[in-house]
């Protein structure tokens, strides 16, 4: 446990000592700010963070891998992975430490955007239930996307490869309903079960939609379902495990 925190603290410091955290946070705030404003500025608009959440989960498909792409790729490029792997550390401690650092940084970023909520309370009367479940869901969603990004970063010493592979996997999970819509029966159901949650209907300025059958829909509505929690937890766990396996496999080459 001590090693995990040593690595996490080092990575968090690196995040905030380099432009990366600031650039990604600025982009995140600007983009989600747009969706928030657009969703609440109509007459009779609902006082909710629905638009913000829909925008956030859509753009995390690209921002999470952007935040994680450096974490393991750079260690391989600098050769410092050789130091980590010849230190008395276990692979999972390296992976967990880095994952926690990325998660904390993302949560700081999300935290900065919480002034939207304050705005809502000042000018309206938001429903607290969906607000809390939405933010909770956002945390689970962020963890899953960061795990995928970290896995992508472990694959090579090239950060761009990490970004493209990470975003690619997340995009594939997002547009999986394009495929399932053309299938029927069990196959369609199985594919639908993997729908990540974001949707291109986020760009529909009337609905700011999330994927209807996806795992984020209930969170946005104010419902916490075990299925959704299990889905995001599984994605997180599976990709962290895969990352550990990639690092272990590196030894056997």
């Amino acid at each position, binding site marked *: 446990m001590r090693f995990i925190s040593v690595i996490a603290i080092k990575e968090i410091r690196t995040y905030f000592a380099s432009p990366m955290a600031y650039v990604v946070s600025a982009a995140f705030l600007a983009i989600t700010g747009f969706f928030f404003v657009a969703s609440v500025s109509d007459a009779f608009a609902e006082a909710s963070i629905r638009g913000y959440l829909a925008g956030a989960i859509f753009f995390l498909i690209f921002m999470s891998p952007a935040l994680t792409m450096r974490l393991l790729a750079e260690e391989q490029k600098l050769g410092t992975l*050789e130091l980590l792997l010849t230190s008395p550390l276990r692979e999972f401690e390296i992976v967990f430490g880095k994952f926690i650092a990325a998660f904390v940084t993302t949560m700081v970023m999300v935290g900065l955007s919480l002034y939207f909520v304050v705005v809502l309370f000042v000018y309206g009367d938001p429903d607290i239930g969906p607000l809390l479940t939405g933010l909770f869901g956002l945390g689970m969603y962020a963890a899953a996307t960061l795990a995928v990004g970290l896995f992508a970063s472990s694959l090579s010493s090239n950060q761009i490869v990490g970004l493209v592979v990470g975003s690619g996997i997340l995009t594939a999970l997002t547009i999986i309903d394009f495929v399932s819509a053309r299938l029927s029966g069990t196959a369609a159901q199985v594919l639908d079960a993997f729908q990540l949650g974001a949707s291109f209907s986020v760009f529909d300025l009337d609905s700011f939609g999330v994927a209807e059958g996806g795992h984020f829909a209930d969170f946005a509505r104010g419902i916490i379902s075990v299925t959704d929690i299990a889905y995001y937890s599984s994605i997180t766990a599976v990709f962290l495990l895969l990352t550990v396996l990639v690092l272990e496999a590196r*030894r056997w080459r």
Partner: protein
Amino acid sequence: MIKIEHMSKSYGPYPAVIDISFEVLKGEIVGFLGPNGAGKTTTMRVVTGYTPPTEGDVTVGGYDVVSHSLDVRRHIGYLPETVPLYLDMTVMDYLSYMGEIRGMNKSWVKERLPKVIDMVKLGEYRNTLVGRLSKGYRQRVGISQAILHEPDVLVMDEPTIGIDPIQVVETRELISNLGEEHTMLLSSHILPEVSAICKRVLVINDGRIVADDKPDDLSEKLQHAERIEISVRGAEAPAFINAMRDISDVVDARSDQRASVVQRSEREDFLPFIVDARPNVQATETIAKTIINNGWGLTNLTPLPMTLEEIFLELTTEENLGE
């Protein structure tokens, strides 16, 4: 401290190290000498627990590198060939982080760090970003991280590669001093470097150990033949070669076929030869006398130092003859 028994390591179908065995005792400084691609780095990676051997047993301090990898890694300080540094950290931050990763607690780091920085003379750069340091200083940072946690065994892969000559001297001195407290395995492709630091040399070539000796004995063994470059005027090649072969200390004589020498000889009217002789003063003297007595003009007589490649060639061909 380090015990390697019949260790082999292949990368896919490519063997990097083939059935090597050796032991490094506590307090020994062993130099690992070999050309690029001979298997030095691979062996070191196996010893440090970075990569497991394909076959054979390797133990460090009694711990197996595969089944007790974490215990092995706790007792080893490792400086890989490309010094692995986080360029955006200061020297102090980098070293504290490395210390903690090696399992030191904060108070131990706090107590030990100033001593190490003092030892490698990094004092004035303690708050400099590692990325701003020159190569020689980066090397010192690399050495610092290897010795910080007071490991029993130090493994250093080409510690003086790519730094300027003055810093090479300082680095060698530093390593020699470290050798007083640590068991050390050090790789190099420079023979004098290994001779200067190590009390024992392992020569590795093509994944096999071809010699295991004290540096002095090793050079003595290699000195059984001295190569002399000779140029003469007014001699016929066969007559000269026969005259040379008649001298008892001469092992072999032949025309020098190296392109540059042949070209030069065409312009300047002399014949170049290579003579292998036993390494004693009389041999050279006798050769010179013979040339003069035959009425040939001696224009050049230079003993050639053996290059590392020739030493390897020597060692490997000898091995083959012995089989």
